[in-house]
């Protein structure tokens, strides 16, 4: 197990290297930040001066080598927009995004676990059908639309929750719920099918025939094994929550990584885009390793060499 973790961690390096190369090239071939930075009245000469000052007149490979040299020391360059170190700006945003992602995950689990289990236990009944229907709707509803509808209902009409921004717990409810619903829908389906498979297995029948109560069997024997695919989906979703809350963060003006990245892309703030993608890639890789490890904890039969 320890050996496995060390090996995985070593594999992180080439992955991050490739990610940095791709992002670096993409950011540079898609547009010129200088044009966006200067006022409309700036002359060609002004642009040349700024291009040179930012080092953007140098060949791409020179720029990359320079970038890589600084990046390994944790320096991802200065944000053009804010004039501050890019990595610092990105890390500053992480807590907000983590907070939102964790709350969304909490909502998702809260909804999906009971619904998924009920659905499996009551397979092919009306309840099952109802839950399936709800989860299809939940999955199909665009985050953007749902966010706006929730704001209209709970903030504008009922006035019980704040519309946007980050503040206390009340600010967290709507965006986290918006993000959590799609995830819950997916998890519900997964828990249902995973539970169904397990409920048909011999050891469940054995447990039942020993005379154990139905609830005990479901809770103690089936549920634990049914969790494995859920953990997979949770980890995959958590990473996409961190990087991909773009739309939800924009709707609720939640000052997280997603919003930072959207603005950075729009303003061609290269350093921020690079640093943000790098950090997201890093989180994805780490979470994947943690997922593998948690499989092992959940199911002792899974072994890593």
């Amino acid at each position: 197990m320890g050996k496995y973790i060390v090996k995985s961690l070593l594999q992180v390096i080439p992955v991050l290297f490739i990610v940095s190369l791709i992002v670096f090239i993409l950011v540079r071939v898609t547009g010129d930040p200088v044009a966006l930075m200067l006022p409309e009245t700036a002359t060609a000469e002004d642009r040349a001066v700024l291009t040179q000052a930012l080092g953007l007149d140098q060949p791409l490979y020179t720029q990359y080598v320079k970038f890589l040299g600084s990046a390994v020391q944790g320096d991802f360059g200065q944000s053009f927009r804010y004039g501050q170190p890019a990595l610092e700006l990105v890390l500053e945003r992480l807590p907000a995004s983590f907070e939102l992602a964790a709350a969304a995950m909490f909502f998702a689990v809260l909804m999906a676990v009971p619904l998924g289990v009920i659905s499996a236990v009551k397979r092919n009944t009306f309840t099952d059908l109802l839950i399936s229907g709800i989860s299809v709707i939940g999955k199909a509803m665009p985050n953007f639309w749902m966010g706006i509808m929730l704001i209209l209902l709970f903030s504008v009409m009922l006035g019980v929750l704040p519309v946007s921004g980050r503040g206390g717990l009340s600010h967290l409810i709507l965006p986290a719920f918006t993000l959590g619903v799609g995830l819950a829908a997916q998890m519900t389906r997964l828990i249902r099918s995973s539970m169904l498979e397990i409920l048909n297995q011999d050891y469940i029948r054995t447990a039942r025939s020993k005379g154990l109560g139905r609830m005990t069997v479901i809770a103690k024997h089936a549920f634990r094994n049914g969790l494995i695919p859920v953990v997979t989906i949770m980890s995959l979703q958590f990473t996409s929550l961190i990087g991909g809350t773009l739309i939800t963060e924009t709707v609720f003006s939640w000052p997280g990584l997603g919003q930072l990245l959207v603005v950075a892309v729009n303003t061609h703030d290269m350093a921020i885009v690079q640093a943000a993608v790098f950090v997201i890639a890093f989180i994805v890789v780490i979470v994947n390793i943690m997922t593998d490890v948690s499989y092992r904890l959940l199911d002792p039969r899974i072994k890593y060499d």
Partner: protein
Amino acid sequence: MKKRQWTGLWITLLAIVMVLSACGGGGKDTANNTTAEGSGTEGSSASSTLTIAAATDIESFDPHNNNNTASEAVLVNVFDYLVKNDSQQKKVPALAESWEQVNDTTWRFKLREGVTFHNGDPFTSADVKYTLERVAKDNTLKQNSYFKNIVEVKAVDEHTVDIVTDGPDPLLLNRLSKMGAGMLPAKYIEDKGMDTFLKEPVGTGAYKFSKWTKDDRVVLVKNENYFGGEPKWNEVVFRVIPEASTRVSELLAGGVDVAASIPSTDIARIEGEADKKIVKAPIQRVLQLIFRQTEGSITADPKVREAIDLAIDKQGIVDSIAGGAGIVTRTSVTPGNFGAEPSLYKTSLYDLDKAKQLLKEAGYEEGKAEMTISVSSQYKEQAEVTAAMLEQAGFKINLDVLEPSAFSERYSSKSFKEMFMIGIGNSLFDASNNYNRYMVEEAKGESDYNNPEVEKLLQSALVNMNPESREKEYQQVQQIFAEERPAVYLYQMEGVYGTNDKVNFAPRSDEMFYADEITPAAK
């Protein structure tokens, strides 16, 4: 038995939903409470927090390294200029009490005495020297291009400075009253460094910096020692809400007092609320089509350009796309700017039959006059309607809609085809800003406009220190442009704001939010 357990769960869920809906019963009251809370302390006096929502965040607290109106709109409350534009865009004393022209290249400013920065340091001529020389000399700063003609700032005494330019500069006062001329504390920055300054900025303005959470909010608090008297609000909060429908919802829910950039589709919704209203004001931005007049280009033919002008129903675009928030014009130098020609304002030409006629005279059969219009996606709808109108007159239009960043790259590399649509602002409030692009050198490769008479007038106006004859020069240029049409002007845009009945807010044409010009409504 088991069945009953699950049913119990369902009943609990239902109960929660019902409790939530019950809260909704008293919804109006709750909403009002949120309003009061969101706007600070309650009491006999009007609420003392002003909350304004804008679509974009400030870039930083460095007035020299910022290039967007949204930043300046916030920063004017923290940093003062030597000269200020009042709400009619007239130059009035601010940190400078008076000024005079010593000779063609030197201006002398008398500074106001007894002014202090937020950290207690006195404001003196050393601060003016530091501020202006920094922005004039550091060519990596975004505001540098507006100030680089300042050669030197001489501190004559503690409260007198001479500003020396590299040639006669009729625009010096305009430069000194815009972003980039916000006065910085020289001693504080020299002692603590720029990084500290950016985290804890200090100015002389009516409001002091309190907190900035990027992409969320900027919080400012009252400067008790403001030279202009006690500020009106205890606290001013600028919130960043990029999504328009969320901004509107915040206004409706009472979370903000003023919301900027209201989309035309939401105007009716806000006006339908008893305690909310829409206020509008023309802004410094004119939507226009700029033509390429290079030999061989179809738009080099004056008849074609005239046909384009006549084929577009500008008022129709204002009404259909901009929700009425626009003023048609035949010049881009609108009132409030130096050199405006009022006779060309609030009018437009539209004559579809004559446009068809002109196109025929120019030798083009129906559908043969093919052109490309490039436009940034922010003006996509306006461009689509324009294209449809031009096709009605017999043109064949290719619409080239670009992402804003792709557009500005093409714009600065001057690689558009027959024409491009763009909204051009004017932060200097002077006609020169509108016309420098038509001077032979600048026009090369973009419009290739070349008219020796216009060139002479523009060159002269650039250094003409006599305001009267200078104004005439620009008015003459506008008359020539109205005939020659190097560009067709569609309309001057208007800023659309939503406010609640707790504040009196009259928007400014420069889109600034001077917090003290927004007053609590009398109860």
